[in-house]
């Protein structure tokens, strides 16, 4: 029984439930404890080594996100200020879980329409533009060029939705591409943002942050900076896909209507 649970669990985690079911039905035919164990371990190995690329990306991304927050909590114990912190962490874990499930489900569908590369490119551009904007803002750097990138993310998402719908002549495929790009962008941005925060103790400390830190009456500047930056990163984890999805859906819907009208 436990062997069946192991196969079912790994198959679900790797996005291969049908193959898991196939393996379980074969396991039923096998007699002998040792042979069943050997078969199960082989199946688990097969499921892990043939994991689809996007599933691997989702799992690694999820694990890396959780690791970033765990490392921050261990390295800066001052981040835990009460029950509210743990509620925020629980919410964060739920969001990361939703990201992983969403990426696996959408990726599985998108592979069939051959739009993964387009979604990945759009995600890279969206995440990159948000990162530059965020960096410029943290520097109190009101330069026109980096701040103008604020519009690049939504524009890329809009174009991605329109292009994917036009290419496949299918609104569901366009929406899947938009969804995948939005989630990939959010994940990539959080990994870059959170990773940098933990690696450099929330640096650079600009004048605004120093002023806020002194006003807060805190004792440790690094803890304050990490808390501030990770909070921003978590907000971006929600904001980026939301904005990208909205823009992408608009692009896909407009093109879909035109395609239908032309037909």
């Amino acid at each position, binding site marked *: 029984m436990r062997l069946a649970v192991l196969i079912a669990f790994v198959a679900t985690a790797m996005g*291969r439930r049908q*193959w898991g*079911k*196939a*393996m*379980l*039905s*074969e396991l*039923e*035919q*096998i007699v002998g404890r040792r042979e069943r164990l*050997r*078969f*199960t*371990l*082989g*199946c688990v*190995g*097969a*499921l892990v*080594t*043939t994991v689809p690329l996007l599933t691997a990306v989702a799992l690694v991304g999820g694990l890396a996100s959780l690791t970033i927050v765990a490392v921050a909590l261990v390295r800066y114990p001052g981040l835990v200020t009460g029950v509210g912190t743990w509620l925020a962490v629980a919410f964060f874990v739920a969001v990361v879980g939703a990201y992983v499930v969403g990426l696996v489900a959408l990726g599985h569908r998108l592979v069939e329409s051959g739009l993964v590369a387009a979604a990945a490119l759009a995600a890279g551009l969206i995440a990159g533009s948000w990162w530059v904007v965020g960096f410029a803002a943290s520097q109190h750097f009101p330069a026109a060029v980096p701040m103008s990138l604020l519009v690049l993310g939504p524009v890329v998402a809009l174009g991605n939705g329109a292009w994917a719908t036009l290419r496949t002549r299918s609104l569901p495929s366009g929406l899947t591409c938009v969804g995948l790009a939005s989630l990939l962008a959010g994940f990539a941005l959080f990994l870059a943002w959170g990773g940098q925060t933990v690696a450099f103790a929330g640096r650079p400390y600009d004048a605004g942050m120093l002023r806020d830190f002194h006003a807060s009456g805190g004792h440790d500047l690094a803890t304050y900076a990490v808390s501030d930056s990770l909070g921003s990163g978590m907000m971006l984890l929600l904001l980026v896909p939301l904005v990208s999805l909205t823009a992408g859906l608009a692009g896909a819907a407009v093109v879909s209507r035109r395609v239908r009208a032309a037909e």
Partner: protein
Amino acid sequence: MPRRRAHSAQTVTLLRALAAEPRQWRYGYDLGVELGLKSGSLYPILIRLCERGLLDSTWETVETGRPPRHLYRLTRDGLSEAHAAARVRSSATTRRTTLGTA
């Protein structure tokens, strides 16, 4: 024209076994036992062949009491691939034999 990736010896063995009776649906575990392939080798091959459209899979219809098993057989492309793989293998064997006797 896309370059055809060479199959591993185990994949060729599996393709040949399936090509021997192309209309027959086969169980995964039985194929593994027949060809001496452990599940850790067999399933990655089955998964890859299915994803490349070379293998068809279906669930058997059974009476109640036990779960249905997954069945496999070659698609038309899979059968062509099996024949091509067998030709490549036999010409490689011939070449080796010729070199050995030269």
